């Protein structure tokens, strides 16, 4: 597979797409860890939810 005279543009676009998607995935994974960690901390400090349903309505 030869990419012709504009190979760098093709490679750059695929690389950029990969990079942006990896950043997106990384952000989502880190955010998930962050939120679960904070939930655990709150759990340890004794704050519990009244029920599963009300957590989102409370805000």
């Amino acid at each position: 597979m030869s990419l012709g005279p504009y190979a760098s543009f093709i490679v750059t676009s695929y690389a950029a797409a990969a990079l942006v998607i990896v950043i997106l995935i990384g952000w989502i994974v880190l955010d998930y860890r962050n939120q679960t960690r904070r939930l655990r901390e709150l759990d340890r400090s004794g704050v519990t939810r009244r029920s599963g349903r009300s957590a989102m309505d409370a805000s």
Partner: protein
Amino acid sequence: MSLIDLANPTRFLALTARVLPWLAGATVILLAIGLYQSALAPDDYQQGATVKIMFIHVPNAWLSMFVWGVMSIASLGTLVWRHPLADVAAKAAAPIGASFTFLALLTGSLWGRPMWGTYWEWDARLTSVLILFLMYLGLMALWRAVDDPSRAARAAAVLTLVGAINLPIIKFSVDWWNTLHQPASVMRMGGSTLDKSFLIPLLLMAIAFTLLFVTLHLAAMRNEILRRRVRSLQMMQASRVAFSSEVGTGSRQENASTGAA
């Protein structure tokens, strides 16, 4: 799964946990096949190998509009049914949609560079995508500007729907503005005229990217639900502390026991 199952955040979380690995797996497999097919695709007689950029530009351009559509439906959910899960869906979609729109812009300008000689041409299609990108950023700024998520959700929902109505008008105006100044657009992207050897990898990539969006969106929605849970728990913690200190003990055990009640 019924709609009622989905409507409950806790059940939604459970469902997400079950579905996510499968979705991620399917995305990876489809993406691999799509990339393989794109690599095999022949060169275009006019554009040469640069046509390969199309295989990732078009899916991203498609998603930039599709995600706005998803947000518009979620916004209807926010405004009509006032369902918090709709808020969550709309908020989680915005940064993902903005990323895809950014990629559409970037790959579009890289695709155009060999043809135009510059990275950016005020081409009708790309310009419309740029405006869409700005609207995504504005929407994200709106989400960030308001502290109370349910209040932000209503404002963002109105903006999303207004955007959805306005986007075709903007597209039309930009097209008109563009033809006024330069008669022919250089970029060729008509779906029907495409050869089958391009169409199959393109479709595969489009489906793979859509699956990727669904996966990321579900994961981001889960994060958002957890974030709101943290927020409401923190608010409970704040009010609980005042209570315990008024009693005069201020001990953690006290908190735990009143919390269980």
